[in-house]
């Protein structure tokens, strides 16, 4: 997925992935299509003129919700002779609309047979990369006089694609066609409307009454302009940084997602195209990254996740009382419980991160009401940490999936099957405990203690939480410290044996504050040392580890979001130069992606490849990669809410020049931050 020649546009969780001609011909290796609510509504959408396929002269993805394609008939070598041009303009906003315009440049009139092949396999998003041979329901197509209806029915589960056109067309079961006569220099156009329906027995749509922001093109444009106008302004001597900043804001707007049935509130979805849904972990971490720039996102995210907090034991969904969800899906496999995402709760970090976000959000916004509103949910989350996550009974958060069929094996952010290993490369048994999650638990308790004391009027609970946090920190520093390597183990197995691999996870420990002060310097050295740091950023797994592979998904690639939290952690412990080193490496990398950082890129040394090598199957834009430049800016500028005002303590590398961020919102109203690059990073390496 994620081929660079595919064009994607989206609005909420409706999106179109097509070839650069605008055509859609979905195959398992080329999962293009029109998607909505985790279902593919078009898998074939091919425009021909007189039976000939079209070729792209150029295309424009004007905004995240619209694209334009300039096409000519025939093969690439015949461009110069083209007597016809075809323009396809499309918008996604609730439904999918395409305007087709055909211009005759010939001095003779022409008669054209224009045809759109249309079809849908109604694949669940989870199936798009499989050969779909045995759909359990029935696919149908009905050609009516004024529309084509494509549908899929399995019991009461009905999904329909309804296609109509402003110019009258001849509809058949496989598409629709027009016969057009064009005089010289004449043009013809039609507007095609594609509606997606999720119909219940009463004929009502599942998404009834749901409107995020307006779905008409103008409303979308207005909404985007407003979003950008509301965010702080960035002025920079370096155009690249300004580009990256603007790209981040626009992508963040695009990734806003409104879950069904939650009244149009939005939170950041995880990423396009395959993760346009709510993810506990991704949504929370993105909110943390963007707090200084888009604080209102935190409020809605916290509320939405709170309203879906677990209330009972459900082994299939891995739900427990107090647990924050991992992932919600709306497709056929969730509906028929072939996948557990209705919602699925199999993550161990979303729950402590929920508490962390609430506290951090209050520090910025002063929104005490929300802290009071979510007191019970916070208490339930903390109870989950102590009562249900401690599977070994020694005071740590562990995971072992109860859904052994479709649940996730690794329930931390590094969730691929081989991400957690001993230093000899073998995989530990379950339950497993990873280090960064213990840091989150520590931080959650410390922060909850503050909220209990200051806002919940419960100093006894605050004392208890602080005692527990202190004990956790002591225990952790004893059990997880790898003596001969002088860092923290990646994970523990149920017998307390260390997975003594050196990984980027130690950077998250700095962020959470669980690292003993006299050990922080060792960790900082590792993070900018040659085994972890490539010159662009910190690898997920250190070079020299048996499973290290520069393009191993969680075993050697660089994840921008990971680096942003590492930089924040370094800054927290006073390693400002190390933080700036990582921040400037990642921001440099962003310029190679036109300001849009991918999910991950190769862990090759910077001097070897000269440019960051994109990980082949990475999603883009992805929410926490989009949030990364914003958190790096916060880190370099040293923005920190402090007793009701905003402290600014910039440490920038010389090359960054002068940066100003104007109108940073918060409990202080709006404040500006100014910085100048004074730090010589080359001296650091010596």
């Amino acid at each position, binding site marked *: 997925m994620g081929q660079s020649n595919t064009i994607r546009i989206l609005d909420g969780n409706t999106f179109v992935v097509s070839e650069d001609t605008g055509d859609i011909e979905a195959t398992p290796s080329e999962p293009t299509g029109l998607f909505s609510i985790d279902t593919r509504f078009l898998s074939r959408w091919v425009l021909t003129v007189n039976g000939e396929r079209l070729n792209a002269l150029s295309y424009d993805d004007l905004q995240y919700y619209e694209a334009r394609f300039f096409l000519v008939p025939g093969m690439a070598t015949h461009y110069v002779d083209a007597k016809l041009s075809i323009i396809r303009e499309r918008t996604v906003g609730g439904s999918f609309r395409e305007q087709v315009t055909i211009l005759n440049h010939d001095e003779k009139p022409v008669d054209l047979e224009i045809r759109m092949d249309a079809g849908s396999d109604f694949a669940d998003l989870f199936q798009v990369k499989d050969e779909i041979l045995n759909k359990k329901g029935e696919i149908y197509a009905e050609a009516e006089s004024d529309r084509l209806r494509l549908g899929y029915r399995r019991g009461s*589960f009905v999904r329909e694609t309804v296609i109509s056109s402003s110019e009258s067309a001849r509809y058949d079961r496989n598409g629709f066609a027009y016969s057009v006569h064009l005089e010289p220099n004449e043009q013809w156009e039609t507007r095609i409307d594609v509606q997606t329906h999720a119909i219940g027995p009463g004929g*009502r749509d599942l998404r009834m009454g749901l409107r995020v922001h307006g779905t008409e093109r103008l409303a979308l444009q207005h909404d985007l302009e407003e979003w950008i106008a509301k965010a702080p302004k960035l002025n920079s001597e370096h155009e690249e940084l300004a580009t990256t900043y603007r790209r981040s804001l626009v992508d963040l707007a695009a990734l806003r997602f409104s879950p069904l049935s939650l009244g149009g509130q939005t939170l950041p979805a995880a990423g396009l195209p395959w993760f346009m849904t709510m993810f506990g972990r991704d949504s929370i971490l993105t909110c943390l990254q963007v707090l200084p720039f888009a604080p209102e996102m935190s409020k809605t995210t916290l509320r939405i996740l709170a309203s*879906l907090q677990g*209330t009972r034991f459900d082994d299939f*969904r891995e*739900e427990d009382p107090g647990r924050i969800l991992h992932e919600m899906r709306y497709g056929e496999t969730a509906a028929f419980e072939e996948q557990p995402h209705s919602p699925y709760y199999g993550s161990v970090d979303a729950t402590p991160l929920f508490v962390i976000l609430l506290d951090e959000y209050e520090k910025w916004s002063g929104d005490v009401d929300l802290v009071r*509103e979510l007191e*019970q949910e916070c208490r339930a989350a903390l109870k989950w940490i102590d009562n249900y996550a401690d599977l*070994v009974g020694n005071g740590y958060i562990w995971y072992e999936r109860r859904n052994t069929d479709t649940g996730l094996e690794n329930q931390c952010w590094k969730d691929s099957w081989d991400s957690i290993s001993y230093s000899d490369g073998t995989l530990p048994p379950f339950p497993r405990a990873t280090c960064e999650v213990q840091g989150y638990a520590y931080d959650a308790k410390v922060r909850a203690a503050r909220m209990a004391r200051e806002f919940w009027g419960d100093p006894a609970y605050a004392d208890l939480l602080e005692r527990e946090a202190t004990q956790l920190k002591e225990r952790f520093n004893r059990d997880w410290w790898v003596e001969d390597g002088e860092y923290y183990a990646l994970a523990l197995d149920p017998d307390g044996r260390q997975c003594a691999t050196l990984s980027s996870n130690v950077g998250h420990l700095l962020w959470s504050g669980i690292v003993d002060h006299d050990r922080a310097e060792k960790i900082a050295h590792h993070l900018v040392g040659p085994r972890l740091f490539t010159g662009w950023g910190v690898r997920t797994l250190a070079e020299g580890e048996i499973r290290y592979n520069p393009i191993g998904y969680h075993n050697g690639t660089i994840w921008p979001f990971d680096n942003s939290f590492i930089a924040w952690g370094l800054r927290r412990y006073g390693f400002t130069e190390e933080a700036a080193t990582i921040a400037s490496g990642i921001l440099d990398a962003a310029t190679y992606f036109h300001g849009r950082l991918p999910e991950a890129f190769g862990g090759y040394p910077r001097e070897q490849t000269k440019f960051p090598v994109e990980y082949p199957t990475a999603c883009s834009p992805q929410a926490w990669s989009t949030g990364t430049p914003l958190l790096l800016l916060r880190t370099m500028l040293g923005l920190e809410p402090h007793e009701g005002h905003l402290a600014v303590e910039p440490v920038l590398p010389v090359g960054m020049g002068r940066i100003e961020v104007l109108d940073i919102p918060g409990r202080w109203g709006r404040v500006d931050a100014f910085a100048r690059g004074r730090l010589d990073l080359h001296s650091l390496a010596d």
Partner: protein
Amino acid sequence: MVDATTRFFEDLDRRGYEPVLAKTSGTLRFDLHEGAQTTHWLVEIDRGKVRVSQEDREADTVVGISPALFEEMAAGREHGVAAVLRGDMTVTGDARLVVQIERIFPGPPDSKGPRRLFHAEVH
């Protein structure tokens, strides 16, 4: 013998307060359709305070469902959100109320919850 459906609503009415619904207000009517016959259950929620009756009154949200499916949900053997996605349960009106009330249904009876290892004693 009282069925799980009646027990579910009677228990809810007897509790009178449901902390999971502390942030929820509104009325929700379950219409259990079987052939020409429809049984109504009206749930009135006022920030966690709950009252259940069998009145056929207008409500913010109306849920259409078969008695058999509701019985399975009340016993924890079926899941409300999945049923909505499948189209086996229909929702008219404010869908937020359904998502919230769904959370007070029991989990699957065979779900054991997290299993703690007891061999590893605290050091």
